[in-house]
């Protein structure tokens, strides 16, 4: 038993923030329902709910300190675990193998009520594809709270067409996918990137389809797969019109091995520390030359086999932005499209239209 319970506890604990001013939010709501054991945690922005199959003899709920319960359960042997609550003292008894343990709890009534989707708009997408799409966009979102809309990922829904987009002002990631089932809706939602970051852990392995439910008030979104759910508040505001910055033409097209390029950028960028991570990319000699220099550290230059089309170019980028894209490309080959040293560069899996990643170059005065 502790196996699935332990994993579920770890998954929901992710919603608990390290520093909360509300002590009850350090607890997990544990509810024995007719479906099984429901675990819920929230930081009031993101909520995660998991259902663990269990044999319920009497329904009831309480809230248990998350850290203690998770740590304790993870040490237990893989044997039957029984939980019983003494409601008058709010003490949860755990019995498993040789262990007889009691944990002091706080009444379930103190736990903030979770938002419910009720009759929201729904669409359904393949779970794995959605998780990949999230991974491919979420890292481009801003981490700076100064412009809240950019800390989210834009979900544009038009019938069955779903587009995810994220930008921090320096780079942009756009991923398109098709819903397997959708209400006839048009909507633009900005979902906090941090909430999306929890989808993978909370929903992986929970069936093959993901249901996205948008609350009627359009202020909450629910991601449901199998018996698990992640909900998040939505970010209020207008997302910038990103489509205009996706380049439509290019004068140089480069294609290279993704893994070789990752390895090369990583190595060379170690010499790009002082100049804020800037690496230079130059075409020539039937390939690419990547280089970086820091005065006090040294310099590094590496050649990389690549297919070239169009005019030669020399361009510079923040290495981190390049690596972020290469790491989530999920294709053996990468295509880079340039249109001059000061125009946006585009990275994508060769020939694919569903995913584009746009990076603004860096101008390095010589």
């Amino acid at each position, binding site marked *: 038993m502790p196996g699935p319970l332990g994993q579920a506890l770890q998954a929901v604990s992710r919603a608990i923030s390290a520093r909360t001013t509300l002590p009850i939010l350090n607890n997990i709501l544990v509810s024995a329902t007719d479906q099984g054991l429901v675990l819920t945690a929230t930081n009031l922005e993101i909520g995660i709910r998991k259902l663990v199959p269990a044999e319920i003899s009497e329904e009831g709920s309480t809230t248990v300190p998350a850290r203690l319960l998770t740590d304790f359960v993870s040490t237990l042997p893989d044997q039957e675990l029984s939980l019983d609550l003494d409601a008058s003292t709010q003490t949860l008894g755990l019995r498993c193998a040789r262990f007889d343990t009691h944990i002091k709890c706080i009444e379930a009534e103190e736990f903030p009520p979770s938002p419910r989707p009720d009759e929201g708009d729904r669409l359904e997408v393949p779970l794995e594809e959605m998780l990949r799409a999230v991974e491919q966009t979420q890292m481009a979102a*801003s981490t*700076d709270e*100064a*412009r809240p809309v*950019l800390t989210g990922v834009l979900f544009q829904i038009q019938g069955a067409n779903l587009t995810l987009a994220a*930008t*921090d*002002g*320096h*780079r*942009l990631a756009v991923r398109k996918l098709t819903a397997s089932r959708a209400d006839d809706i048009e909507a633009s939602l900005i979902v906090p990137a941090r909430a999306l970051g929890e989808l993978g852990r909370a929903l992986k392995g929970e069936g093959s389809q993901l249901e996205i439910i948008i609350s009627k008030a359009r202020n909450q979104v629910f991601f449901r797969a199998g018996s698990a759910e992640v909900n998040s508040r939505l970010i209020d505001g207008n997302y*910038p019109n*990103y489509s*205009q*910055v996706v380049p439509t033409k290019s004068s140089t097209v480069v294609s290279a091995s993704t893994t070789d390029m990752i390895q090369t950028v990583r190595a060379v960028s170690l010499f790009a*520390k*002082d*100049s*804020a*991570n*800037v690496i230079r990319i130059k075409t020539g000699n039937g390939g690419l030359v990547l280089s970086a220099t820091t005065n*006090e550290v040294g310099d590094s230059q590496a050649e990389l086999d690549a297919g070239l089309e169009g005019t030669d170019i020399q361009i510079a980028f*923040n290495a981190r932005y390049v690596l972020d894209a290469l790491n989530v490309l999920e294709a053996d080959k990468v295509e880079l499209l340039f249109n001059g040293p*000061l125009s*946006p560069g585009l990275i994508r899996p060769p020939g694919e239209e569903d995913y584009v990643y*746009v990076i*603004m*170059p*860096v*101008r*390095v*005065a*010589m």
Partner: protein
Amino acid sequence: MTIRALPPAVADAIAAGEVVERPASVVKELVENSLDAGATRVGVEIRGAGKTLIRIVDDGAGIPSAELRLAFQRHATSKLQNLSDLEAIGTLGFRGEALASIAAVSDLEATTSGRRLHLRAGALLEEGAAGPAPGLVIEVRDLFANTPARLRFLKSDATETAACLAAVQRYALLYPTVRFRVIVEGRTSLSTDGHDPLASVYGEAVSREMLAVDHLNVTGTVSPPKLSRGTRDAMLLAVNRRPIASRTLAFALEECYRGALERGRYPVAVLNVEISPEAVDVNVHPTKREVKFRDEGAVFAALQRAVRSAIGAGEPARPPEPAAPGPSSERLLRQLEIQEPPPAIDPQLPRPASAGGFLRPVGQVLDGYLVAESPEGMVLIDQHAAHERVLFNRFQSRLEGAPAVSQHLLMAMTVELEPALAAGVADHEAELRSLGFEVEPFGPRAVRILAGPVETPPESLEPAFREVLAGLRARSADDALASLACHSAVRFGDALDLAEQRRLLQEVESLSPDITCPHGRPVRLLLDWQQLKRHFRRNY
């Protein structure tokens, strides 16, 4: 009411007020007399905060017995003979007012060259022979007894005593070869040994750390940045070994520590500017504390150059970058209306590879301080202040010609500006560009930012741009750089992962341990191993 000429005693008492306003002025005047007389030993005794007794004993030339009576007449002096001498005053005293003024407001007895003179309120009481002691002894009793108004204006005894002591200290520091001894209420308060007055005044520990200044005509000693005071009291500036009060020179000195000292902290300094007597007018004020330079800008520059070379050459490594003298001193010079180029920046010292020693990351607390281990002990680093300093230096080097690195924006950012500020964009295009900003005009009161410094997060670009522009327009490159660094640095509250911590610490390693952030706040706190051992009583 009829107008009458004042009786001499009243007139003298009024005139005395300008020279002798408190016991410390008596001490100052008499010590100056002793020094002008070539004394090598000066003893000062103070009782009752100087109101009861001030006694000065020296081994100087004394006053020839025949001239003793004359010495106490107003404007009688041995130091000046004609008006042209006033142009080139080489002595501390010269006005011929001191002795007469003191005599006018006290009961004074002078003994020199075998003669003794006793005056009260300026009037001769007795004159006679005395023992043939060398030098001069002057005893001033009952100071201000005949001018009760002045007496009432004196501060507390402790304050007046401290002022007397401070007056002697100033000369002790400026005349290191003269032995001074001050006895307050029968106890020795200061005693210099004729070669290291600093140790006597500020203590051995301070004296050991002080850095010698000797550059052209500026000599003395200044503290390294790690030694500082909360007041300007320990900043002693002198011209031809005459202590002076000069806001301009004090500013010049403080500027040298800019960026190395926190705001509100001041160095310890004894600085003497040797200058041809014709180039300075000390006859501005009766107490001679204020002076006028013929060429203040040159003195300003010389002092800064001297101090910079001293703190730059100090051991251990001093702040690698001279604390940007350019714009702010330039501004000051302009205020003074001196058509002088700003003092040149001393050539940058090569940056030591690891001035502050290796820093091993341990972790982060409060999402604001990095904890690290160095060879000296445990180090806490204010992540924002440290990063600000690193970026400030980097931006400064770009402003001085290092290649600009600008990150272009996906979507140009439109920034509305007041017309005055918008007009400044064109004037400062070169500087903005070298910092990494690329902007284009967008109507009369707006610009579009196309690119910004690589280090500046896009969200901070607009406020950073505004402040940089405002700084440049105010001709304060330092302010502009500080704003940019502030907006670009990691913030207090940003959680940094281990890689980010390591990276920041590496950059901090190359900074002097005493360095502050551009606003003057400290960057690091060291808990050295000794301190830790002591605290945990690991005495083995």
